[in-house]
């Protein structure tokens, strides 16, 4: 299958995009509840449903960031409430180590967030998302795909033959 796909491009000012991984039992349900309760919140989040926050592979987080998410939100059941006994604790442990790694890679800690949201906390879905969107709005885009293109500009440059002297002079003073 040819996976070249057209994207939906609308000429709007930049708005952060969050990929949210929500567990089926608590947080996804809470997001449904927010819907049923018609709570309005920032539309910047795209939710991916997993059965348990313990299913969230750190690779998913990195993939989401690397594909252009400005932030990643993990939502799971409150400690002690996991539908699968303790998947959320595993998520919490992974979260902390991954968070350190992301910070080490220059990613602001506000871009990666874990929240316990129970099935009844529709309003928390709203406040957490609104809050995160506001923070990301201030941080500006992460936009790794665009950065990657920018990084690779140097390859395009070097494809040319040996540059003339003036250009070296310039490069040396960058």
């Amino acid at each position, binding site marked *: *299958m*040819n*996976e*070249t*796909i*057209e*994207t*939906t*491009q*609308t000429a*709007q000012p930049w*708005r952060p*995009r969050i*990929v949210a991984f929500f567990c*089926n*039992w*608590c947080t996804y*349900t809470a*997001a*449904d509840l*927010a*819907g*049923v309760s*018609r*709570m*309005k*919140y920032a*539309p910047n989040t*795209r*939710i*991916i449903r*997993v*059965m*348990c926050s*313990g*299913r*969230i*592979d750190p*690779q*998913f987080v990195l*993939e*989401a960031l690397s*594909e*252009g*998410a400005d932030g990643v939100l993990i939502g799971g059941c409150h400690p*002690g*409430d996991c*539908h*699968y*006994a303790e*998947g959320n604790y*595993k998520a919490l442990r*992974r979260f902390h180590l991954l968070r350190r790694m992301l910070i080490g890679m220059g990613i602001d800690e506000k871009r990666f967030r874990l929240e316990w949201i*129970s*099935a*009844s*906390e*529709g*309003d928390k879905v*709203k406040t957490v998302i609104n809050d995160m969107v506001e923070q990301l709005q201030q941080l500006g885009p992460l936009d790794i795909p665009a950065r990657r293109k920018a990084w690779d500009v140097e390859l395009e440059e070097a494809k040319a033959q040996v540059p003339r002297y003036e250009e070296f002079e310039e490069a040396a003073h960058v």
Partner: protein
Amino acid sequence: MKGNGDIRIGFYICHCGTNIAGLIDVARIAEYAGTLPGVVVARDYKYMCSDPGQDLLREDIAAYHLMRIVVASCSPLLHEQTFRRAAEKGGINPYFVQMVNIREHGTWVHDDAEYMTGKAMDMVRAAVLRVYAHQPLERKQVPITPDVLIVGGGIAGIHAALTMADAGKHVYLVEREPTIGGHMAQFDKTFPTLDCAACILTPKMTAVKAHPNITLWTWSEVEKVDGFIGNFTVTVKRKARYVDEDLCVGCMECIEACIYKQGKFPDEFNMGLSKRKPIFIPFPQAVPPVPVIDPGQCLHLKKGTCKDTCVEICADRKAINFEQEPEYKEIEVGAIILATGFTPFDATRIPYYGYGKYPNVYTALELERLVNASGPTGGEVRLPDGRTPERVAIVHCVGSRDEHYNRWCSRVCCMYSMKLAHLVKEKTHAEIFNFYIDMRAPGKSMEEFYNRISSEGIHLVRGRVADVYPETLEKKTNGQIGRVIVQAEDTLIGRIRKIPVDMLILSTGLQPRIDAEEIRRMFNISCSAGGFFLERHPKLAPVNTFTDGIFLAGTCQGPKDIPDTVAQAGAAASEALALIDRGVFELEPNTAYIMEDDCSGCKSCIPLCPYTAIAFKEEKQKAEINEALCKGCGTCVASCPSGSIRQHLFEDEEIYREIRGLLAYA
């Protein structure tokens, strides 16, 4: 890019009336979906979940040789099964369906149409990419244990137990108190029919006791719940009653014989308005009719110095047993019905209503006992000083509809306040003032009841009581001792009224039981914002919980009156019956599985499984997942360091595709 001979995908977007189409341009999204790889047909339709909507799916599968289906509509928690069944009927594997939740996570929560349209396109793209990678799966079936546990022996638990038992199922009915009957047993008459609560309840209570299919455990509590739908293992603690239920014949002579000649301790059943002995039975018609001894009050148990007159009188039966220890019973059940009931709002929390401060301020439940013929005053409504009240005020909405206490309307207070107005007036001929905010009389015969009582000549004051204080504080007192002034704005005449009354009745609302949170955890279900147990869906699954096999009945789910409680108990019982009678339960095939050739046998996954579903196979030097034990959380999948564990329905590849689809760049 139409159908490149590879995977052929059908896309459907639901208008959901105006719920979705009211905000976003569904036709535009369908058109966009049609440009996505693999999509050979893309349509928008008014109601996808309707029969014609499902037919459309089936017809298209045949006409376009569809291999995958994407439906953009509501939450998959709501209709995933619907569309899977439709796909199956159309002849493709039910798991070739992916839903896009553009309603709950979209049009219901956002109002920027343009942006939401873009978001919907992102979500659609993700689903189309994801569904491409879907694998055909088979449903797994597990057998269901035919017995059922019902927690709580109020009218809801009783009715559910009898329904199930009559259908031939074995029921364990567990009640915390020494008797079943719950709050209803405390009521005098019930609205709107004004029939006596005991007359309708006690026959059902005795039927429970007599039913061969019901194991009744009163004075017992659920300690632990393990397992899952069809196969719960429950530990029940039977507290020490110190009276052997098997030996006791219910003669009550032990109570008579107790060394305490008079009642000494507040009688819980009568809301502390009378006294009882350390050995007691809550009320004469209690089921089982077996006394219970309070170990904190009984001289023998407390000090060991009693003459043991109760033991003496029971010499024949030897039912009194001071050595009794709590017993723990482990039972296997296939389904559980929670009917744990409510707690009345604690009126002391509103200091300005004076409950607990002024002796003539009562709660409604206290009044129920006062007007009850078998209550502490034999049914006479008297003040603490023995007088019969001449003026009585009833305050509606105490603790309800209030941001400081409980936000919800407790639903029964208006009608029971009218009932109490009627009963008190009937018994005392007092002048009655009902202070209400809005008179709520929905439901069959309720308006008629309201009409009837209001014509009996009570004063209905539209205004919430704002203050209660002793009459002596006002300048002009007519000498009546102990009257309180009820102060409220009568909003209909626009005047502040200060009405001195002899008796004030607080119509306290219903709230979750104090330990609802612990029960919720034990049974692994959810609570709604106010703390009542959360139903799976308010309309489509009102007695189900998010935990399969656990059902709700009565006021533990939310305030409701007796007719509704009984109706809901019946519904919970039939849901449980339907489950049990099916004999097997189909599990989501979302289990994890190990790619045997790829597994290095590093054992990292083994301790992570909460269900010990993963074992290390020595002969192969590989790990293996027992599919029957796996619940499909996917924790091991996320952890496998060499990517050798996969999960059906949530394959890495599927999730990656979803991520990429959501974020795809031009």
